[in-house]
């Protein structure tokens, strides 16, 4: 479970990547990333999430997202990534899925 806030772009994405890699190195392969406090995400941020999804999947794990903000959801929608990530309306929904 990882809570992310603020803006995820080329300046901040490396920190997110490090944290996700640390979780995988810790053998945590069922990851929920809570994006509810995120104001902005661009393709660099999406790339980090794609990379993390790939890492957990090689361990038969999964990476689910929590997001209800229309502006953030739109970025996943227009890039086609809504069909790649499981996106849930709440952390509870993500954990019980």
């Amino acid at each position, binding site marked *: 479970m990882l809570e992310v806030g603020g*803006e995820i*772009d*080329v*300046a901040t994405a490396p920190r997110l990547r490090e944290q996700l890699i640390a979780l995988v190195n810790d053998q945590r392969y069922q990851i929920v990333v809570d994006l509810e406090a995120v104001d*902005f995400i*661009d*393709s*660099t941020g*999406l*790339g*980090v999430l*794609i*990379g993390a*999804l*790939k890492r957990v*999947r090689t361990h038969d794990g999964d990476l689910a997202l929590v997001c209800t903000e229309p*502006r953030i959801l*739109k*970025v996943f*929608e*227009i*890039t*086609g*990534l809504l*069909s*790649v990530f499981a996106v849930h309306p709440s952390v509870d929904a993500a954990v019980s899925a």
Partner: protein
Amino acid sequence: MAGEASARGDIVELALPARPDVVSVARLVVGALVAADPLFDEERSADVRLAVSEACTNAIQAQMACATNGSGEPIVLRCTVAEGHLELAVSDHGSGFDPGKLTPHPEVTDPARLDFEGGLGIPLIRLLSDHVEFHVTATGTTVEMTFEPRTEGEDVVLVATTG
């Protein structure tokens, strides 16, 4: 920041050091310019901020990857607020690329797509802008994007392809 009025509209030109942390500055400036135009609603403003984020990210990475002619040079963001639309140009001094020769990645729904973390930026720019041109020379790249407001009820549903 240099500001000037011209027959084409108000122009704001910004030279930014080629560092990752300036991308958020570019978004702020463009967001403020768009907010001053009542034709652009909040959703369209978000489109413009996302597109400029992608263009500046590409410009900075191109320049950082190019130690020879790029080192020390700023990237330049030029915003022209014209009647009914907004023009944005982002220039770098990197070594350039051919947008027509980008290796297509697998579709996002293809499991093999997970092998590629990048490659979504230019498709996003194409989707979000109403017109885009890439001007590539040996001494750098300029991306010119035009944005028009979305009229009420116009629901543009597009899906990016990475090809």
